[in-house]
C-alpha cells in the first residue's frame, strides 16, 4: 500500500471515529436536555400562594406570619370575584323565586303534574344550594312541555317553561365558570373543606394557573361542520355573560391574576425530601428516592463480595477445564438474560421458596443476581490486566497466593473493579422489572433509615414509580412535572454515580501510577 493511501485511510478512520463519538454526544444531549428542562420544573417553578399554603399545612416548611399576610392580600384581591359571583347568584335566585307563585298555583292541581311540582317545590328556597335548585327546576321542563301540549293545560305553563329555560341556560354556563374558578382558586371562603387534598387548594403552579385562566376566558370546542377534520374553536366565555354581574369578572381576573395568586419563583427542595400528597399530585418523591438508594446499595452489598470472590476464583484458582468453561459460559449467559426473568426468579425463589417478605431484602437480592455477572466480568478483566510482574515480585518475596492477591493484585485491580461496581450500581438503580414482584409498591411509607426496620418493607422506587405514574395514574397528564422530575432525578443519580466512578478511578489510577 502506498504511504499516501495509508495516510488517507488513517485519516478517514479517525474522522469516522470522531464523528461517531460526536454523534453519540449529540444524541445524548437531544435526549437529556429536554428531560432535564422539564424535570427541573419539579424543583424550580413559579409557585403560587396556594403552593406555599399547601407546604406549610402539610410539611411545615415556610414562614406562617409571612404567609398569613400573603393569604390576606390574596383574599382581598379575590374578594371582588366572589362578590360578582354572589351578585349573579342572588339575581338568578330572585328569578327562581319570581317563578314561585306560578309554580305554587300549578302545584295545587290535583293530578300527577301538580304532585310532581309540589315535591319539587320543597327543594327550592333561599336555604338550598343555588345550582341544585337550578337542576331541580330544569328537570321539570320536559314534563311541563309534555303537559302543555295537552288540552286542558293552563296558559301559564308556556310562560313558566320559557322562564325556566332562560334561567337554566345561563346557569349552566355559570356552573362551568364556577368550576374553573374553583380549579384556579380553590374552595371559596366559607365553603366546606373537601376531603381530597387536590380539592383543597387552587393551582399551586403558576404555569398551570395560566392554563386555567385561559380556560376561564375561552370555551374550547371542536367544530366538525366544515369539510375534513374538525377545527378547534375558541369562544370568549364573556359572551355568555353579557350584561350580567359576571361580565366585568373577566377583565378583573386579567388585571389581578397575579395579585390573586401571587406567583413567585421558588426552589422547592421538598421535591426530594417530602412525601407525596394525594398520590403525587403534590409533594415530593422522598419515598422513591430513599427506596432506590436502599435497593441499589443492598444489591451492591450482596453482589460485590460474591462477584469479586468469583472473579478471584476464576482468574487465580480455577484450573482450565470443562467445568470452568461451563461456569464461565453460565456467567456470560446470565449477563444477557432479560431482567424480567430475574424478577420472576426473585418471586419464585426469594418470596416463595425462602419465604422472604416482599421488600427491600428480596428486591436487593434479585437486583444483586442481575448485576452479579457484570461485576464478575469487570473484576475478572481487571484482575487479569494486573501485570504478571507484580505477582512475580510478591511471590519472590515469599508471599503466599492469598497474600499476593490481597496485598498486590486486588489493590492494582481496584480501578477496574470499581468501574464495574459503579456501572452496575447505575443498572440496579434503573431496573424496574426485577423489583415489580419482589420489592416495589406504588404507594408506601418512606423507608426507615435504620436497615433493620426497613429490610422487610415494600418500597416505592424511582424506576417503578416513573412507569406507574406515567401509565396508571388517574391524572397522568396533570403531573407531567413530577414524572419528568423523577426521570431527571434518576438520571442524575446514575450520572453522578458514573462521574463518581470516573473520578475515583482516575484518583486510584494516579495513585498507582505515581
Amino acid at each position, binding site marked *: 500500500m502506498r504511504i499516501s493511501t495509508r495516510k488517507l485511510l488513517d485519516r478517514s478512520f479517525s474522522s469516522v471515529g470522531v464523528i461517531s463519538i460526536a454523534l453519540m454526544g449529540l444524541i445524548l444531549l437531544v435526549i437529556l436536555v429536554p428531560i432535564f428542562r422539564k424535570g427541573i420544573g419539579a424543583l424550580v417553578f413559579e409557585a403560587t400562594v396556594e403552593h406555599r399554603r399547601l407546604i406549610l399545612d402539610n410539611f411545615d416548611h415556610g414562614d406562617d406570619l409571612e404567609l398569613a399576610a400573603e393569604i390576606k392580600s390574596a383574599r382581598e384581591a379575590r374578594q371582588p370575584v366572589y362578590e360578582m359571583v354572589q351578585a349573579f347568584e342572588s339575581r338568578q335566585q330572585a328569578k327562581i323565586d319570581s317563578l314561585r307563585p306560578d309554580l305554587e298555583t300549578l302545584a295545587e292541581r290535583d293530578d300527577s303534574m301538580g304532585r310532581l311540582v309540589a315535591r319539587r317545590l320543597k327543594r327550592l328556597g333561599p336555604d338550598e344550594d343555588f345550582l341544585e335548585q337550578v337542576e331541580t327546576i330544569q328537570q321539570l321542563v320536559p314534563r311541563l312541555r309534555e303537559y302543555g301540549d295537552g288540552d286542558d293545560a293552563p296558559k301559564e305553563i308556556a310562560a313558566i317553561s320559557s322562564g325556566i329555560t332562560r334561567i337554566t341556560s345561563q346557569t349552566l354556563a355559570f356552573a362551568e365558570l364556577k368550576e374553573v374558578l374553583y380549579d384556579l382558586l380553590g374552595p371559596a371562603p366559607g365553603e366546606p373543606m373537601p376531603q381530597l387534598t387536590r380539592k383543597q387548594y387552587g393551582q399551586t403552579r403558576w404555569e398551570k394557573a395560566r392554563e386555567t385562566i385561559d380556560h376561564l376566558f375561552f370555551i374550547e370546542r371542536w367544530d366538525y361542520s366544515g369539510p375534513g377534520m374538525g377545527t378547534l374553536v375558541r369562544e370568549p366565555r364573556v359572551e355568555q355573560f353579557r350584561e350580567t354581574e359576571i361580565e366585568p369578572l373577566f377583565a378583573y381576573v386579567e388585571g389581578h391574576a397575579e395579585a390573586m395568586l401571587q406567583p413567585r419563583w421558588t426552589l422547592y427542595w421538598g421535591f426530594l425530601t417530602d412525601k407525596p400528597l394525594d398520590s403525587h399530585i403534590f409533594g415530593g418523591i422522598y419515598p422513591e428516592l430513599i427506596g432506590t438508594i436502599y435497593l441499589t446499595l443492598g444489591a451492591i452489598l450482596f453482589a460485590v463480595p460474591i462477584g469479586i470472590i468469583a472473579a478471584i476464583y476464576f482468574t487465580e484458582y480455577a484450573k482450565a477445564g470443562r467445568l470452568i468453561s461451563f461456569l464461565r459460559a453460565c456467567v456470560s449467559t446470565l449477563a444477557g438474560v432479560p431482567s424480567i426473568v430475574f424478577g420472576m426468579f426473585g418471586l419464585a425463589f426469594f418470596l416463595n421458596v425462602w419465604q422472604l417478605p416482599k421488600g427491600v431484602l428480596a428486591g436487593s437480592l434479585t437486583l444483586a443476581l442481575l448485576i452479579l455477572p457484570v461485576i464478575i466480568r469487570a473484576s475478572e478483566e481487571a484482575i487479569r490486566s494486573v501485570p504478571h510482574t507484580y505477582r*512475580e515480585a*510478591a511471590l*519472590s518475596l*515469599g*508471599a503466599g497466593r492469598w*497474600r499476593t492477591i490481597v496485598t498486590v493484585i486486588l*489493590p492494582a485491580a481496584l480501578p477496574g473493579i470499581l468501574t464495574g461496581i459503579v456501572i452496575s450500581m447505575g443498572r440496579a438503580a434503573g431496573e424496574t422489572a426485577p423489583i415489580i414482584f419482589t420489592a416495589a409498591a406504588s404507594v408506601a411509607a418512606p423507608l426507615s433509615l435504620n436497615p433493620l426496620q426497613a429490610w422487610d418493607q415494600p418500597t416505592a422506587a424511582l424506576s417503578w414509580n416513573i412507569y406507574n405514574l406515567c401509565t396508571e395514574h388517574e391524572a397522568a397528564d396533570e403531573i407531567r412535572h413530577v414524572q419528568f422530575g423523577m426521570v431527571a432525578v434518576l438520571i442524575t443519580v446514575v450520572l453522578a454515580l458514573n462521574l463518581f466512578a470516573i473520578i475515583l478511578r482516575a484518583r486510584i489510577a494516579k495513585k498507582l501510577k*505515581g
Partner: protein
Amino acid sequence: MNATPTPLDFRPFGESTPRPGNPVKSIHVDPKGAQDSVYVRATDFSIFYGRAEAVCKVNIDIYAGLVTAIIGPSGCGKSTFLRSINRMNDLIPSCKTSGQLLFDGVDVYDRRLDVTVLRKKAGMVFQKPNPFPKSIFDNIAYGPRLHGVKSQAQLAEIVEQSLLQAALWDEVKDRLSANALGLSGGQQQRLCIARALAVNPDILLMDEPTSALDPNATSRIEELISELRGKYTIIIVTHNMQQAARVSDYTAFLYEGALIEYGETRQIFTNPTRKHTEDYITGRFG
C-alpha cells in the same frame, strides 16, 4: 566437592541457626578460599517444560559470598535454571524437574519444603524493574511486613538500611511516600534490589537486571553488585559478556540447556577449556 548434604531440617532457614562450615555471611573475597562453602548445588538437575527439556543434567556448585554469572545465548535455559532455585517455575504448571537441587543443604524440591521460606532466603531481581504501584516505603516494607515485622520504627530502620545498601537512600530519602513508579528505570531496579534485600536473604538471584536500563544506570547496578559481593551470594544471568567479566567471580556457560563450562571468570574469559565457550565469548555465535 563435599558430597554429604546437610540432613534435611525444615527450620534451617531460621534467622539464628548458624551452620558450622557454612559461614554464608562471611566474606570470601578470594575465590580460591570459597570452595568449601557451597551454597547451591545442582546434581544431574534437569528441568522440563512438558516434554521439552530446557535444562539438562546440570551439575554445578555455586559458592557462598561470591558473584556467579550465568551466560549463554538466548533461550539456552539461563532464566529457567535461575528461577528453579527459588521455585518460581512452580507458576508454570507444565514445568517439572529431575535430579537434585540443594539450597544451603536443603533439597529445594522436597515436597515438605515451605516455598515461602525458601523465597525469603532467595531474593530475586527481574529483567524489567517491577516495583509495586505503592509508595517507595511500602515497596521496601512489603517483605518485612509479610514476614511479621509490625513495629513502624523497625520497618523504618529496615527501609533505610535496605535503601542504603542498594545505594538509593540519598536519592529517595525525602520522598519515601512517593509512588515508586515515579522513579527512573535505574532507580526502580535499585529499589527492587533494596526490596529483595529488605527480607534479609542469603542469596540474590538476578535475571538480566540491566537489560532494560541505559548504560549509566547499568554501571550503577554493576557497582552495586560489587558492593554487595561478599555480603550475599549473587547469581546473575546476563548475556552481556563484558558485564559478566566485570562483576563475577565465577562464570557458568550454558548452551542449549547443558552446562558447557564452569569456572573462575578470569579463566573462562582468558583461557576457556572448551571450543564452544571460546566461540561464544569471542562473539562467533550467540
